[in-house]
Each structure stands twice: as C-alpha cells, then as structure tokens.
C-alpha cells in the first residue's frame, strides 16, 4: 500500500512544507505525492530486470534463473549500471560540447552578447595543453582551445586531453588499468554497443568500461564544461546570495531559470538588467524583473553573480505554486514534465529553450548562442507580458543568505592571497587534525526521502566532527537554505578545530563550489592538495569522502564512477540500482560487492550505498580516520584545538575603557 506522508515528512524545509500544504489545499499533486503513490518496481530497483531486447523483458527473481539469452544477474546489473553511467556522462558531456561550441563562436565574434570574461583562466587552461599563449589575443587562444575541446568528443584514439591534469600516479594507474578515455563520445557509444543483446557478458569487464565512461565525464566533458563556463562567465569568487522560495518577489516579474546550462541564463541575467527590459517591466506595472534559479542553472548564476536560488530540484513545482512566477525558463536536465500541467493551474509559462528539450504543452523559444541577447530579451518580454495574468500569490517568506563561489582558483587565493596563494594552509589543517577530513556532499533531491533531511543531517553531524564540507548541485542549495554557507556557521556549527580554520580564513564551513557539472572542481582541489604535499602522492590517500545522500539521476552515477576511478570513497544514500535480492537470490549482490571491494582493489576508491544517515556518517569518519592513520597523521583529537579567534578579544572590548586597557594591554610600568 502506498503511504501518504505529511508535508513535514516530505520535506524538512519549512518553505517547502508551506507550499506542500498549499498543494494539498489546492488538490494539486507534486513529485512528493506521486512518489507516495508510485511504489518503485522492486525488481527494477534491484537491477534484476533486463529489457535490452524483445525476447524479454526478463525478470530474474529466482535462484539460478538467467535471461532468455542466458544473461546472468551480474551481467544484467552491470549492463544496467553502465547504461545509466553512459546516460549521465552523455548529459554532462553534451553540456560541455555546447559550451565548447559557444567558446568557438565567441572566439570568432559570432556569439551575440558574450565576451571572454576570464582571460587569466583561459591562459592557464590553454597552457595545460601547450597551446601557445604569449603574444596572442584571447580570441586566438580561445579558438585553439575550443578546437581542442570540440575534438575531444569525436576523438577516436589516444587519451582525452584533460587527463594530464590528474596526479601523475593516478594517470599511470588508469593507463595500467586500461581505462583512460579515448574520446568522450566513443566511450558512451561503446557503452551502448557493449550492452546491446549478445555483446559484453562479463560483469567485471563491463564495469571496467563503466569506469572509462565515467572518466570521460569527470576528466572530459564535465571538466570542459566547467573550464569554459569560467572562461566565458568568470571564475567564481565569494559573493553574497540568497536561497529559498522567499526570494520570489510579490511586486516584480518573477522569472525562474531552471535546468543546467549557464549559456542562456547568463544572458538572461544580462538582459534583466537592461534598461529597456526594466522599463518594459515597469510599463507592465511591476517594479522590475526578479530573476532566480532552480537546480544547477541556479547554481551557475548564484556562484558568479549572486543571483538568488529559489530552490533545489524538488522546488521546481513548489515555485510555480506560489502563483508568482511569470515564466519558468528551462534548458536541459532534471526538468519534470509535470511542470506543464501544474502551470496550467496558474499563469506561469513554461518556456523550453534547448533544441534538445521540448515538453508537450510548453512554449518553445529556441536558444541560439549566435543571437543570445536578443532571445533572452524576447523571453523576458514574454514573461513581463504575462505579469498581468498573475492571480493571488502565496510566497513563503522564507529565505536565507549564503556566500557561494568557491572555485578552486579562489580557494587557492583565499589560503594565501595574491602572493602566497597555495593549498599549504588547508593541507596543514588536515595534517594537524584541525580538519579531520573533507567530505564532498553533492547530488540531487529525491522525493522518496524527506527533502534535504539526509543532506542536512549528514552535513551538520560531520561539521561537528571537524569535517570540512564542499558541496555542489542540489545538495549545496540544501545547506544554503539552512544558513550553513555563512561565515557565522563556521563559528557555531562546527568542532573546535574547524572553527579555527573557518575563522582564520573567514569561510563558511560548507563551501559552495558550483553546479553538478562543477564536481570537477573537487577533482582539481584534490589534485592540488596532493601536489601541495604531506597528504600522500595520489587522491586515494587523502582523508576525503564523496557523498550523495539524496541522489536520483543517472548523472549522479556517472559522477560516482569518475570519483571512484579518481580514488575516492563514494557513499550514496537511498537504494542501490544493483542491490540485488541477496536474501532471495544468492549472488545477486555480486555487482554490489564488486563496485565496492573490487573497485577499491583496482582504483583505491569504492562505491557503496548506505541508506541510514548515521551509518553514512560512521562510514565517513571511519574512512577519513583510516586514511589519516595510513598517512601517519596524528589521531583526530578535538580537545587539542580551538584557542584561536576573536572571542576573547571581543569579550574584553566590551569592558569599560579603564578595565579594557588593563585587560588588553596589562599594567603600564613606565
């Protein structure tokens, strides 16, 4: 029987709860209620269903059962997994491809409204690949870099270029294991080929290709996407932003951008500040245009311009239900088809923009980077024209400030300034035990769990254990909504050692590093931590863990694959797509074990699925402590730390003048 949850059980976010109660009142269904109504297929969930050909679908639920073709459970699970990873890699990488084409167009002055904003990053990235930079214009360099990056997708032989940025030892290991991607598209295509009926039918061999397909994402398509986003739109640095539905404005035209790519949204940001558009909005009776984001499009403009985030994945329907959104402009990935029907209850226009994504019933205004600014203005005018149709609004007055924008470049800067930038202070902090370890808590929202609960619980508990947290994607927005991405949280929500570090640098204890495609920034940080020295000579030795407590997308699995391949311990919440039914069918968890212990032997990283948050925390701490011990670092001991900081000074400064002088400067002698 499907269970029906209360709003409080569906989300820990009070803004979401408010909207879920309203949905109930209006009798409108959401992903939350649909999840309640839709029991997941338990055979599919265990990875034991094969629908690769028309001899099936085959459901292998009995001991010794094989598919019509004879495929065993482990083959079927491995095939399902690699297909999911291929889809995830394809999504990220296709995003990267579009970025590369945009860069090419910008370099040739064919992209309206775009400029090369971060020439320094362009030069650094180009010099990774020995593209000449001295004495050349940014456009010339960008043109070469765009050509190189575009070529990575269709490359057939050799190695994708960005892998040379991995630690030497790691790259050597990949070469030995035969998993260096040859070309991004080639690995995705091969994943599909291998999993066609009657092809690769050895689970370990299939899973080796899962690693290669994942690497084509993390050290290929995604890395390309992040690089180019920074080059075109600026490398993020800390900026004040806001998150949650309270950012929607009663008296302004609310335009919500949702999806994953920054190309259009950046142009909408620019257009929304255009006097012509502001005047147009005023003429329509609004004070202006309030732009906000959902999902990773939100993150892209949040980390660069501080444009507020209306929420994460599960907020997409809730935002519309405020009745205040004139247009939700979507591009690619994680856009629920339900939006269109839901929007019919309000005045909201759902505008699809990607040539790859149309949704039946939505307005389609196709984006083309060659006329980006014109299209952006056109979209905004559509939204403004819709303002007059707005009915009663119901915006939860809940929002929180945050300081996002921690690119690896800024992290390097923040640890030493222009002259002494380095990762040394971070490495020192980990080595001394002020920072026990680092956790990257990333990934989606999943309506099958309580929204944000797992994210927040794990984040909060790990902070108390002096684990520094970096985040991207929807997980990041969860912490933002909770105020954990403020410097203040670094003083009150953490253990004593981490507090010293947060206070020394002025950082929040949870660093927002960008969108889900930006997980490559975490790879770069780990690589730089290794290069700085003192924490081993490869990523797998660093006391760090990757977690995706509320994952749901195939992209999450692709990320997991490249993180494991890079040497990370990856913990997913929820259920495993290859979990099998070991209590009913013996050996149906072979793949589950292989991607843990098997992969760990090969790559030093492993993928595990742990639904219980306390167990997740326990496993995380055990792992970082194990890595600390292996490095010969001191055992984590919070009692040793916590003396630094302003507290004592600020206390003394409260005293009356005479006492204050005495307390701070001591008794004067002569």
């Amino acid at each position: 029987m499907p269970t029906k949850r209360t709003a409080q059980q569906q989300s820990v976010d009070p803004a979401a709860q408010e909207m879920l109660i309203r949905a109930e009142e209006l009798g409108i269904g959401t992903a939350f209620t649909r999840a309640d109504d839709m029991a997941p297929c338990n055979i599919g969930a265990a990875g034991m269903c094969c629908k690769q050909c028309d001899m099936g679908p085959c459901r292998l639920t009995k001991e010794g059962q094989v598919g019509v073709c004879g495929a065993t459970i482990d083959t079927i699970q491995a095939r399902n997994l690699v297909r999911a990873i291929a889809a995830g890699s394809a999504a990220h990488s296709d995003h990267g491809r579009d970025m590369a084409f945009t860069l090419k167009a910008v370099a040739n002055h064919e992209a309206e409204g775009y400029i090369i904003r971060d020439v320094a990053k362009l030069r650094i990235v180009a010099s990774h690949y020995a593209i000449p930079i001295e004495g050349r214009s940014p456009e010339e360099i960008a043109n070469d870099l765009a050509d190189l990056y575009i070529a990575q997708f269709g490359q057939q032989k050799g190695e994708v270029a960005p892998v040379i940025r991995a630690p030497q030892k790691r790259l050597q290991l990949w070469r030995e294991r035969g998993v260096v991607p040859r070309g991004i598209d080639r690995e995705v295509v091969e994943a599909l080929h291998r999993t066609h009926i009657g092809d690769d039918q050895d689970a370990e061999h299939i899973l080796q290709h899962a690693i290669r397909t994942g690497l084509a994402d993390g050290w290929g398509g995604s890395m390309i996407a992040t690089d180019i986003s920074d080059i075109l739109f600026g490398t993020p640095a800390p900026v004040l932003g806001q998150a949650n539905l309270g950012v929607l404005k009663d008296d302004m035209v609310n335009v919500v951008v949702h999806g994953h790519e920054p190309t259009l949204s950046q142009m909408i940001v620019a257009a929304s500040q255009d006097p012509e558009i502001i005047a147009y909005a005023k003429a329509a009776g609004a004070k202006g245009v309030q732009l906000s984001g959902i999902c990773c499009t939100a993150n892209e403009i949040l980390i660069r311009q501080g444009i507020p985030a209306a929420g994460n994945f599960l907020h997409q329907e809730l935002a519309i239900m405020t009745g205040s959104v004139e247009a939700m402009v979507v591009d690619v990935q994680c856009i629920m088809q339900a939006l269109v029907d839901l929007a019919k209850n309000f005045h909201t226009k759902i505008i699809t923009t990607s040539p790859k994504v149309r949704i039946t019933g939505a307005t389609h205004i196709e984006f083309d980077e060659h006329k980006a600014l014109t299209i952006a203005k056109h979209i905004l005018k559509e939204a403004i024209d819709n303002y007059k149709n707005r009915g009663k609004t119901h915006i939860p007055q809940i929002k929180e400030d945050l300081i996002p924008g921690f690119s690896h470049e800024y992290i390097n800067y923040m640890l030493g300034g222009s002259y002494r930038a380095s990762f040394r202070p971070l490495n020192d902090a980990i080595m001394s035990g002020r920072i026990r370890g680092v956790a990257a808590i990333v990934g989606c929202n999943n309506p099958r769990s309580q929204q944000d609960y797992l994210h927040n619980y794990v984040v909060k508990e790990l902070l108390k254990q002096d684990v520094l947290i970096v985040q991207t994607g929807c997980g990041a927005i969860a912490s933002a909504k909770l105020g954990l991405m403020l410097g203040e949280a670094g003083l009150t929500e953490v253990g004593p050692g981490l507090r010293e570090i947060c206070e020394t640098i002025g950082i929040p204890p949870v660093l927002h590093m960008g969108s889900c495609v930006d997980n490559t920034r975490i790879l770069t940080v780990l690589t730089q931590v290794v290069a700085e020295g003192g924490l081993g000579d490869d990523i797998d030795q660093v006391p760090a863990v990757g977690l995706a407590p509320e994952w749901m997308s195939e992209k999450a699995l692709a990320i997991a694959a490249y993180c494991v391949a890079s040497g990370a311990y990856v913990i997913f919440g929820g259920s495993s797509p290859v979990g099998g039914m070991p209590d009913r069918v013996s050996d149906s968890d072979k793949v589950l074990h292989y991607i843990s212990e098997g992969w760990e032997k090969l790559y030093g990283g492993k993928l595990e699925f742990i639904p219980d948050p306390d167990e997740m925390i326990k496993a995380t701490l055990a792992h970082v402590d194990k890595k600390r011990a292996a490095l010969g670092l001191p055992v984590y001991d919070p009692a040793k730390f916590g003396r630094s900081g302003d507290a004592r000074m600020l206390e003394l400064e409260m005293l009356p003048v005479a006492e204050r002088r005495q307390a701070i400067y001591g008794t004067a002698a002569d």
Partner: protein
Amino acid sequence: MSKYIATRAMRGANALVTEAELMLDKALAEKGPDTKVSFPNTAYYLPTILAMTGQQVETLGQLQTALEHARGLLHPLPSENKWTPYLGETLDSGMATLFAAETIEAIRFVYGLQPEPLPGFHLAGGTSYGSANGDGHLNGPIDDIQLRSWGIQLVDGRMPGFAAIVGCAKSNAVAVKIVRELQKRNILTFLCGNVNGRSIIHQLQEEGVELGYDTYTVPFGTDTISAIYPLGFAARSGLTFGGLKPAMAREILMYNRERVFAFVLALGEVDDLKYAAAAGAINFGFPVIADTVIPEILPTGVTTYEHVVSMPFDQIEGKDDLERAERLVQKCIEIRGVKVKVSSVDVPVPYGSAFEGEVVRKADLRIEFGGKYSRCFEYLHMASSEEVVDGKIEVVGKGFEEIPAQGSMDIGIVVKVAGRNMQTDFEPVLERQIHYFVNGASGIQHVGQRDIAWIRVSSAAAEKGFNLEHFGKILHARFHEDFGAIVDKVSVTIYTEPAKVAEWLEKARVAYDFRNKRLADLTDDRVEEFYSCTLCQSFAPNHVCVVSPQRLGLCGAYNWLDCKASFSINPTGPNQPIKLGKSVDYLKGYWEGTNDYAKIGSHGVVQEVAMYSIMENPMTACGCFECIVMLVPEANGVMVLSREDTSMTPAGMTFSTLAGVAGGGLQTPGVMGVGKFYLASPKFISAEGGFKRVVWMSSVLKETMAEEFKVVCEREGDPDLLAKIADEREVTTVEQLLAWLEQHNHPALALPPMF
C-alpha cells in the same frame, strides 16, 4: 587571520596607502617627478617594491606606479555579518602596506627626514651616510655591505634568526632583558615602532645599551613605518643569496619562509597600522607574537608554525618581569622554529656571538692586555691524553685586582687540548677560535691573534666579578661545544707571572714559526684533495665553494685547514673532501674530481669549474664574498673591489650593484667573488697572469693587506707594483684608469690580451 585582525589590518592598509598617496602628491608638486629617490648603498632600489614587483624605482614619479599597485591590493573591510573570506585579502592588504611604507620612507629621504634624527643617540656601527658618523640619528635601512657581511653568520647558524621588535616594552628593564636574551642567542634584533610616542629604542638608549651592527641590534626608526626596513632586508636576502630575481615575488617570499628565521614581536598596544604591517610580514612567513591580548591565529600554513600568538605579559608565568621577558623570548623562538645553540658558559656576564662586536672604550676600561702598553699572546697546542686534565684552569701569577683602573698587564693564554681525532694541523684552526670565543663575553673585547692579541675588560664586567680564570672557563666550554668531535680534553693556563710569560712566549713563537712554514709548504700541488664548502647552500642553493690550500673560501672564513677540521668534526657536514684525481688542465686548474663535484654540488647548474681562472668557468659565489674581482677590458686587467668600499669604480658600478652580478651561484666569466687572502695567493687568477693583472684596487684593501701584498709584489718581481695599482682616491672612471696605468707603467698593459 581572524575577522578582527582582518578588519584592523585592512583599515590600517587603506589608511597608509592613502597617506602615502597624499605624501607623494605633495612631494611631486614640491620636488618634481624626476627627483631621485633611493636608499643608501643598495643595488636593490627600493628593495621590497623591487623584489615583489620588479619595478626599479629611481624617481618620485615612478613611485606612482608602485602606489597604484598597492591600491589595487586593497579590499573593503569584512562586513559585520555574512562576511566574505578575508585571509587572502588581508595578506594582500599587508603587502600594500609594505609598498606604501617603503614609498613613505623613500619620500622622507628626499626631504632629509631619514635616517630618523634622534638627539644624543650614538650608533655602534651602522649604515654610513656620507660624513655622518652615527651620532644623532637612527640607522635607517641596512645597506648591502652589512647584508653581505652577515651572510656567513646567517648560513652557518651563528646567527640563527631575526627578531623585529615593534613598539615599547613594559619597562626599561624589560626592554633590556628582552634584547639581552635575544643577543645571548645571537638573534639579530631589529628595533622600530612606538606606543604613544615611546619606543623601545628610547628605552634602550636610556639604559645605555649599545645599539648598532656591532651588537646585533639595529634601531631603524621610532615609528611602525620603519618596520619596512627589516622586510626590505629580508626581501634582499632572497636576491643576494638565493639567486632569485626581482619580481619572483612568490619565490622570494617562500625563500624567506623556508630559510630566514625571523619573527615579529609586538610590544604594547597593537594599532591598525601594526596589524597591517604584521599582515605584510606574514606574507614572508614571519609569525607575529604580541605581549598584549590580541586574537590568536594558531593554524599553520602561510607561516611554518602559528601565525599570530598572544602572550599577555602580565599573564606569563614567572617570579618577576625579567623572568617573564625571558619566557616571552623563548616562546618567540619556539614559534618561528629558530634553531638556537645557546652556549652555556659559566661567566658572570652575558655571553653570545651578539656581543662579539662590542667595543670597550677607554672610559669604560678596567684593564687591558696587549695593545700599546703590554703584551698578550695566545697559544694552543695538542698533547697526549695523559698530559691534559680536562677542565683544569690555572692562573699562574697575580690577577688584575691590584692593577689600577685603565691599567694594563702582560698575559699569556695557553690552551692544551687532547683528542683521538686531534691533529697538529688543527692547532691553528682551533687557536683562531679564541678570538671569537673570548669576544662572546659581554664587556670583553678581543682583537688580533697569536702574539699580537689585545684584550680589554670593561669596568662593568669586572664589577660583575669577571676575572682571569673566566677566560679559561670560556675556552674550555666553547672548545668542547664547537669542537667536541676532535677535542676530548681541554685545559687552560693563564700566565701573568713575567718569567713564565716570557718562557711560554718563546715556545709559542717557535710554534708560530713552524706553522708559518707548514702553511707556506701547503700548496695545491702537495695535497690530493680539496674540500667542498656547501655551508651557504642553505641560502644559495646551487652555489658550491671549492676550497684549496691556496684558495680559501670567498667568505674569508674557511680555509683548507678549517674545512679539513670541519670534516673531522662532522663527516657528513658541509665540507667534504674532493679527491682531485687526474689533472685536466693544470694551468687553469681543472681536475676530474673538481669538475665532477661541481656538477653534483651545484645540482647541475655548473658543469665545470676552473680553480685559477676568472675568464673561463670561474668559481661561483653565494653572496658573502669579501671582494669582487672584475675584468676591466679596456685596461687588460682586473679591478678588485672590497665590500667595505662604497665608492664608484671604473666599471661604472658600485660594489652593491656589482655584487648582484657576482652572486647567486651563477658563473659569470670576468666576475668573481673572492676572499681577500686569495688575492695574495700565487694561484690568484694564475691562468690569466696573476696579481700583475690587478690594475685597480679599493684603498681599504691596499691598507689592511699591505704586508701581504708587499710579499706578493716581491714574488712577482715588481716590488713597486702596489703603487702602480690605482684606487678610488684617484681613479673612478675607465679614462682615468687608462691614464693612470700609462703614467705608472703598469705591467698589465704589456701582458697578452685577457680574452
């Protein structure tokens, strides 16, 4: 940083950059943009700006660029709530503060406000300003001469670190105690800043503490801005010794973090500007310790250990303020990781290398031995183990108690050592140490060696109970401490009884004579190995000295015997024997062994080294050479420039500028840094014709080396040669030089072309 510190440092930085801009605007209006700006006797322009940005500031107008750079490094203060990170921003603000401070001091020089005047003050050794003799003003920036002459002490650990004291101590007594504690550890102490107008410099002046280069204490100025001078000194150390080039900012800062053990000690209230300057210092990896309550920054990274430490003076454990001062100094040393060797010498006066330079003036004199009115000699010899009773110190004859104040008496100091690894060759090596060892006692001055030694004891030292026996205690303790590997037993006899003095002086003179002959016999072709000296590699990572009997180290401090002794003391240390192997070119001085070693020792930077040539693969130099030898092509010869000579040379450059070419561990044909005694060696650029090539020489060398050069001139068959060599008194241009050489018929003109 913490938000509190960040806020105050950024505020201080913003204010100082603005102040510098206003001062510069005023100066530009009053003096004009082409007005020259410079610090005295340095080749490094305004050194911090040069090192960090590569900009060679020579005029007021150029300072605008430096300040624009500084302004670009400033940031808005962190907001009260919801702040963005501030550590990197604070460090940048600190750097901006340094650029602004250096700009302000440069402008003050233009207005004659630097060095800072301080009536009644006398510098015990300092930067020279034309005819000013150190009276009535503070030091201002350290000049290149002093930087280089301290070089060897920095690298061999004798001078383990620097303390930059900013502010004012709790009391005069505490000020003196802090400085004495630092001196005792041979830590070079920089003094600047004030609290409400009162500076530690005033405190020390009132207490009669001698301040200056000679006592390892440098009073820069009584404001915080003068703290730029020690940082300019630090920046130059990377350029002088580290082989780093201007604008290699990060490398220079890292060099300081790794190799220059400096820290900032803030005494008294820390204001915005002090926070800002401290942020500048932290860029260099120098931690800050305050004796008041300030927020502590204990995580490490930018500095090696803690960044900012607060030790409120009243809360330091200790029975009185003096003990608290001692603890404070100990904590500073610990935080910077300064490796200090403290000599525990049981004498009633403070003891340490920092006191080596102390002068005992006639008015303060209790008694002197040697000099004009009496004789003093020192003699160290080895004996069998049975003959030496370790620690036995005997005074044969009367003490100086009965001699009236400012009197003199004859004395002989005879040291007997025994040790399994002791060799006769080491006797003179050890004997020469007596000078340094005795000088280390505060209030005792030692000059000379052998039978021309001259020792003065101050009244203050005598009042504290210093007597003859203490010479023995010092020598016993120090020989064990420094030469424990070759010396097992040491006994000392002090002779004052006239008959005994005469008797031992005779014995000593026989030994001196023997040693002279031995040294004369000790030539490069009679040994099978030279020694490497990589002592300086802690500072100049790719430089390697090859020390032969006839070519001592360029610092003048290590000859072949010293290296041999050093190898015996520490077989894995900086002095390693280099087996010569086959001679490749005897004239130029190539051996297989030396060439092989050059490659290894220089980490591949140098491929070959010619021991006797300046034109072909000359030996490299760190930065602490005593003189520079440089080709003067027009004159077909070389000039020799002493580091003590600040005047212009025929090369069109002063020592400071030339030193930049000679140092840093790179081979530059035609330029060499050498020890001055090498000039007198028969192997001195013998490949090019030797001493006859010297066409110009600093007069200070001519004077101080007169006796040695007399011998050389005779050896070269031209007894008047020295008089034919020009110096800066007559000749400062090439034209003048050529005229001089013609006029004096200098032999170089008749020698074959040098290249």
